[in-house]
C-alpha cells in the first residue's frame, strides 16, 4: 500500500454536494483491467465537453473552461476541497485510482460516503472530515487567494493553510498507522491466520451448509 506522511500542495475545489463515483470516473473507463491510467478521465463528463472513451488521448479534447480543474490557478493541485457526502454511489475503487493518478492525495469534505472513504486509505489518499463551517471557511479562503495551498501532516494530524491557519483533524489510529507506514493490509490480517482458522473450524461445525457447496 502507498504511504502518506506529509503533503504540501495547491488546493482545488469540487464545489457541489453528493459527488458520486459515477461523476468521479464514468463507467466506460471501468472496462480496464488495470489499476492505473485513470487520471486523464477524472471527472470526465464535467471536465470535457465531449464523451470520453477508454484509451483515448485527451490532449486535444474540447475542455469545459468553467470546470475548476481546467483553470490554470488549480494546475498541479494535490488537495481536493469538496462538499457533503463526497464519493457516494458505486463502490468502484477506480474513483480513488483516478483521483490519485491525477495527483490528489488528500480530500477534505464535511462528510464522505462509507465505501469511498474506506477505498481512499487503500490507495495512499487521506480523506479528512472537517465541520461544514470549517470547510465553508476553507472554500472562501481558497477562492479569495490564488495559489492557495496547504500542508497536510498525518503524524501531527494537522492541516496548515498558506494563510497560516492550523486545523486539527481526526483519523482512526489503525488506519493512520497503516497509511503512514504504507502497510500491506493482507499481510497484516494474515498475522491472525491462526485465529481465522480456529474461527473457521468452529463455524464449519456449527454451519456445515456454508462449506464445500460452491464448487
Amino acid at each position, binding site marked *: 500500500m502507498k504511504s502518506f506522511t506529509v503533503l504540501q500542495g495547491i488546493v482545488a475545489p469540487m464545489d457541489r454536494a453528493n459527488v458520486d463515483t459515477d461523476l468521479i470516473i464514468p*463507467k466506460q473507463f471501468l472496462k480496464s483491467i488495470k*489499476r492505473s491510467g485513470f487520471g486523464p478521465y477524472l471527472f470526465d463528463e464535467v471536465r470535457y465537453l465531449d464523451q470520453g472513451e477508454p484509451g483515448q488521448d485527451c490532449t486535444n479534447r474540447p475542455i469545459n473552461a468553467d470546470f475548476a480543474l481546467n483553470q490554470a490557478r488549480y494546475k498541479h493541485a494535490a488537495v481536493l476541497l469538496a462538499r457533503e457526502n463526497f464519493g457516494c*454511489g458505486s463502490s468502484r475503487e477506480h474513483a480513488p485510482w483516478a483521483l490519485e493518478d491525477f495527483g490528489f492525495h488528500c480530500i477534505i469534505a464535511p462528510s464522505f460516503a462509507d465505501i469511498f472513504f474506506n477505498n481512499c486509505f*487503500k490507495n495512499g489518499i487521506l480523506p479528512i472530515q472537517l465541520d461544514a463551517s470549517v470547510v465553508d471557511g476553507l472554500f472562501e479562503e481558497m477562492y479569495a487567494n490564488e495559489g492557495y495551498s496547504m500542508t497536510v501532516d498525518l503524524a501531527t494530524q494537522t492541516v496548515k493553510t498558506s494563510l497560516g491557519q492550523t486545523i486539527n483533524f481526526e483519523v482512526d*489510529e489503525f488506519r493512520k498507522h497503516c497509511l503512514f507506514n504504507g502497510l500491506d493490509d493482507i499481510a497484516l490480517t494474515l498475522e491472525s491466520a491462526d*485465529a481465522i482458522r480456529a474461527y473457521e473450524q468452529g463455524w464449519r461445525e456449527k*454451519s456445515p451448509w456454508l462449506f464445500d457447496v460452491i464448487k
Partner: protein
Amino acid sequence: MSGQTLYDKLWHSHLVEERDNDCGLIYIDRQLIHEVTSPQAFEGLRIAGRQPWRVDANFAVPDHNVPTELHERSGGIAGIIDPISRLQVQTLDDNCRDFDILEFQVNDVRQGIVHVVGPEQGVTLPGMTIVCGDSHTSTHGALGALAQGIGTSEVEHVMATQCLLQQRMKNMLVRVDGALQAGVTAKDVVLAIIGEIGTAGGTHHAIEFGGEVVRALSMEGRMTICNMAIEAGARVGLIGVDEITIEYVKGRPYAPTGEEWDLAVAAWRELHSDDDAYFDRVVELRGEDIVPQVTWGTSPEMVLPVSGIIPDPATMDHAGAREATERALKYMGLTPGMAITDIQLDTVFIGSCTNSRIEDLRAAATVVEGKQVASTVKRALVVPGSGQIKQQAEEEGLDKIFIAAGMEWREPGCSMCLAMNSDKLGAGEHCASTSNRNFEGRQGFGGRTHLVSPAMAAAAAVAGHFVDVRNW
C-alpha cells in the same frame, strides 16, 4: 441490558477478532465476483504469490458488460463487439479457471445479474456474511444476511484472508406499518424512504427494514428495498428472516437439504432483531401515505409523488440546496412548476438488480397487456435479471405480451442500468427506468434518468409520459 439487533447478531456470529475503536475482523462466508471489479484483485494475488483462502466461498458471474441483444450475445465472449468489454469478460473466465472458482459463464442459462443470481441459486443464504465489489450487494440483506459492497482492494483482501476488517456500523430501523395502496410497490416504498432520510441518511448505518408493509412483501419486493439501501448511504440493508424467507430459499440449487436443511432453518429462525433491541435511529412511515414515486433530479433523494410538481430553486433558503436543484434541473432539462406527469419519455428501461425479477416482469406485463408503446417512445427495453427468469417469463408468455406491445425482450444482464454494454441513453433523452441511480451520465452521456417502479415504467411506456398507475 437491551436485546440485539439483527445486525448485531450477524456481526457477533462472524467476529474473528475484536479490535480497538469498535472495529473487528469478521469472517466472510461468500464472495460474489463479477468482471468489472475483480481483475485487479486477481492480479494482486498473482503479484504477491497468494492463493484464495477458501475457493468454495467464491462464486462468479459476468453481468455488467454482457450484451443483451441476441445477435451479439449468441456468439459468447468472442461475439462481444467492444474489444475492451470482451477482454474484461474473458479475463473473468481466465481468472476463475486459474483459481478454480465456480463461474456461470456468459451463455449459461443460470447467468444473470450477480445480485439476482445469488439468491435465485441459493448461493446466498440467510445468516451469511456476503461481500462483492459492487455497492448493490446490500440486496442480499433481504434474506437476513449481512451483505455489503466493497472496493477492489478489499475484494483481494477477502480472497486472500476470508476476512474483512471493519468498523461496526450503527443500527437504524426503518419501519413501514399499515398497508400499501393498489399499484404502490416496494420500489415506491424505498424511493419514499430515500426521499425522507436523504441520500446520506444511512451513512455509517446498517438499515433494517421492518413493519407490516415490509413483512407483507414477497422476497422480490424485499430485495428491491434492500438493494437501494446504498442509495440512502447505507452499505447494509437488512430484513429479518420469517416464513417467506425460508419458503423462498427451500429447494434452491445450492441451499441445504435433508438434515442440514432442518439445522439451517433452526438457526435462521433466530435471525431477527430482538423486541427490545436498541436502534440508534428509528424512522417510521405509513404504507397508506406512500404513492407511486418518480425521481426528477440527479440524486435518488430528488424524488416526488407522481402527482408532484418540479421544485423551484428560487424558493429555497439553503444555498447548497438551491445550487444543487438548479444544476439538476439544468441537466434534466426541466423547469420549476412543471408537473411530473408532463415529462415526456424517449426510452423505457425495465431491468437491473433492483427490478428485473419475475414479479417485476409480471407487474410490467399486466400494465402493457393488449396495449401499445406510445409512438413518441423510441424504445422500451425489458431485460430479465437472469437466464432462469427469462425462461420462466417465457413459460408464462410475458415475452409475447412485451413484444406485442412494441417492447424489446432482451438477454439477461445489467444493461442500461449503468450502460457499460451497448445499451445506452442518448444525450438529452428522458428515460423511465426501474434501476437504482439517476446520477448524471449514469445511463449514457447526457442521459436523463427517472427512477420508477416496473408498473410505473410500463404505464409511462404506453402513455409516453408519466401517469399514476393507481388509475390504470
